[in-house]
């Protein structure tokens, strides 16, 4: 049977339920005491109910809304046929990491934003992300098929960084038949998926399984290897790698530039999350040796996903009060709705339209609070978001004993700094040809946050895929020329 036969005809809204099938999750009062995943995922029955809501539009806007253009109506049809293997394979044609995307993609701004069901007032879009997760989890439970690999090309390629961009690039390059080595600077693979995103949002076992799959595909993973230092790009070429992908991400904290940022008890989000996630400080001192300093009152500055992760992690590490301080309103917050919603449910306090002026310390340099000023929203700025304007004399203090700065990341400098011919923007991002993702050095490609600045997991994955394709073409053409 071909896929077209299984696709369905457009259906009428009037036959459908207006609301998304709810996904069961751990109750807030329970989950703030553990690090287990919050939503449980759909059961088969729930998935079928939700799949039933799809209108099978003649023009599937959802696909246009997806950065990697997953054939969404086709996988939903497969669910309705209870042919889950077919469903997962449809997703995997364009997205090799559905278990991750089903959990951390901002679907509400992508496929689900475009979904016709959600365009009518009071109606929810189809829960595409939840259905994606359902299929991915089904596959984990029912056996995973190692992707098919093309005949070996005899080419050696290097992928630097095992975050979302690197994982996808490595997988695709292996499928094209190249011999891939994946270099990771840390002791664990997955990049931001393991050091940044907490266990309660993305279980680390999922990332571990994806890395295992890569190894089954013949990808060699070299941990503890810092490209730029342990080996330079030039040395990788000398070692016989014919093409190189740089996916080293946005691992360099941004800071506010206000007084008190170096006080005791003040963290950059990356350190706080790295201690909590990668180093598993929540198991200290019995099972992990890395401590983390979490007080009773914790302030997180910022309102992106990273800030929500920090505020929610703080609660799980014993904070009695976890506060978000953000200078704009929730409408401008870069975090996903779901993350804000989860944070609110868990009791995180939002101090909106509040700009930080200075971090206050006691005589022993322990952080004791944040000096703030109220703001109002003005005209939109370059980012398109309304500019916060401080209100004169509207200053106040918030008390805290831990403070986390979560206002963004910059590109990690190690590869650019140690690669003299690699052209970068002034803000540190690597400059690439937008069509091919090739850098200023022939044979060296780059993608993900190291090129775009801090963005999303799915965009990094899309870049990894795009780069792998150009690298494949580059490698094959190189032969023809020779």
């Amino acid at each position: 049977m071909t896929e077209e036969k299984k696709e369905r005809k457009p259906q009428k809204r009037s036959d459908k339920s207006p609301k998304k099938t709810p996904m069961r999750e751990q109750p807030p009062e329970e989950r703030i005491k553990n690090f287990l995943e919050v939503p449980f995922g759909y059961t088969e029955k729930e998935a079928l109910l939700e799949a039933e809501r799809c209108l099978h539009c003649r023009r599937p806007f959802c696909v246009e809304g997806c950065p990697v253009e997953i054939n969404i109506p086709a996988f939903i049809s497969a669910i309705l046929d209870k042919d889950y293997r077919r469903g997962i394979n449809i997703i995997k044609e364009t997205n090799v990491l559905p278990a991750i995307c089903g959990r951390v993609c901002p679907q509400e701004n992508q496929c689900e934003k475009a979904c016709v069901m959600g365009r009518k007032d009071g109606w929810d879009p189809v829960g595409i992300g939840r259905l994606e997760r359902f299929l991915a989890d089904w596959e984990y439970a029912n056996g995973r098929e190692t992707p098919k690999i093309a005949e070996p090309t005899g080419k050696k390629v290097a992928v630097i960084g095992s975050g979302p961009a690197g994982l996808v690039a490595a997988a695709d390059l292996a499928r094209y038949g190249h011999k891939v080595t994946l270099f990771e600077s840390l002791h664990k693979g997955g990049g931001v998926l393991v050091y940044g995103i907490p266990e309660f949002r993305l279980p680390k076992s999922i990332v571990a399984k994806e890395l295992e799959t890569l190894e089954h595909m013949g990808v060699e993973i070299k941990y503890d290897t810092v490209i730029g230092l342990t080996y330079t790009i030039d040395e990788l070429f000398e070692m016989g790698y014919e093409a190189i992908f740089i996916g080293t991400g946005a691992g360099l904290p941004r800071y506010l530039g206000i007084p008190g940022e170096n006080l005791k008890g003040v963290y950059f989000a990356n350190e706080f999350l790295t201690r909590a996630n990668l180093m598993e400080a929540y198991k200290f001192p019995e099972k992990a040796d890395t401590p983390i300093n979490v007080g009773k009152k914790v302030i997180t500055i910022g309102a992106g996903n990273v800030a929500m992760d920090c505020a929610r992690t703080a609660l799980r590490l014993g904070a009695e009060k976890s506060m978000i301080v953000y200078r704009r309103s929730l409408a401008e917050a870069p975090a996903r709705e779901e993350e804000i919603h989860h944070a609110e449910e868990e009791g995180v306090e939002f101090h909106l339209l509040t700009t930080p002026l200075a971090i206050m310390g006691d005589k022993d340099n322990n952080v004791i609070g944040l000096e703030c000023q109220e703001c109002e929203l003005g005209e939109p700025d370059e980012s398109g978001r309304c500019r916060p304007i401080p209100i004169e004399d509207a200053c106040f203090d918030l008390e805290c004993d831990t403070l986390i700065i979560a206002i963004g990341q910059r590109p990690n400098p190690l590869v650019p700094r140690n690669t003299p011919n690699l052209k970068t923007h002034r803000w540190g991002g690597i400059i690439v040809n937008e069509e091919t993702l090739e850098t200023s050095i022939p044979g060296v490609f780059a993608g993900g946050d190291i090129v775009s600045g801090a963005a999303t997991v799915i965009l990094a994955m899309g870049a990894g895929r795009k780069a792998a394709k150009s690298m494949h073409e580059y490698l094959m053409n190189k032969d023809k020329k020779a």
Partner: protein
Amino acid sequence: MFEIVRKEWLHEVIFLIEVKAPAIARKIKAGNFLVFRAKEGGERIPITVAEYDRKKGTVTCIIQVVGKSTKLLSTFEKGDYIQDVVGPLGKPTEIKKYGLVGIVSGGLGIPLANLVAKELRNAGNEVIGMVGARTKELLVWEEEMSKYCTEMDYCTDDGSFGMKGFTTNLLEKKIKELEKEGKKFDMIFTVGPTIMMKFIAGITKKYGIHTIASLNPIMVDGTGMCGACRVTVGGEIKFACVDGPEFDAHQVDFDELLMRLGQYKKYEKVSYDLYLKECCGGKQK
């Protein structure tokens, strides 16, 4: 996994391990550091290098037992494996011909100073070593270092070896001696306890001698990612792991560094006490 090919105790609480790490040994230079993680669940800790052997593919580190992670490492013997060894991290020391160079180091700074002395000497500098420790037994690796120094002066806090006093006294004495001969240090390199480096920087500032200090803040990843190791240098935030660990000592805010180094004291004690209870019946050694 990284094999230990040599292990020696140099003192009751100081040991040496030579680790097989060919990729690192191939290109490590004076001033670089490594990150060790002894085993699963372990901390990532920055470790300085005393010596390397490019042919054998090994690096030699001298470590003092100060807490759980170093205690755990001290239980490893020849033939055991360290889970993770990462490097060479940080920027290497700027090696060039300065002229007359003084290297001031204390305690566990001496092994690191050894490599710096070696490379500075090979670059044609005259190198005067000034090293100190609390007591004679805690002076380690000073003999190796003395090989690369045109002159070597010693001090101990208790006077058990060399001059009685601190490296600051040793340095000031030397500066004055040189003055009488109409000479002056062209550069001072200092490594050791932060409080020592702070006072050394104070002295060299007074005499107007360019000084480089190798800092040792708390680190986690060691690759610029987390910012735990931030220090204020010349009024700006710098990350010791990628921008350093060596900085112009006259620009470093040592008081802030000292304050930040003490951040996890209470946790370090909890972890160490638990480990001693579990593994050594509560005893230190």
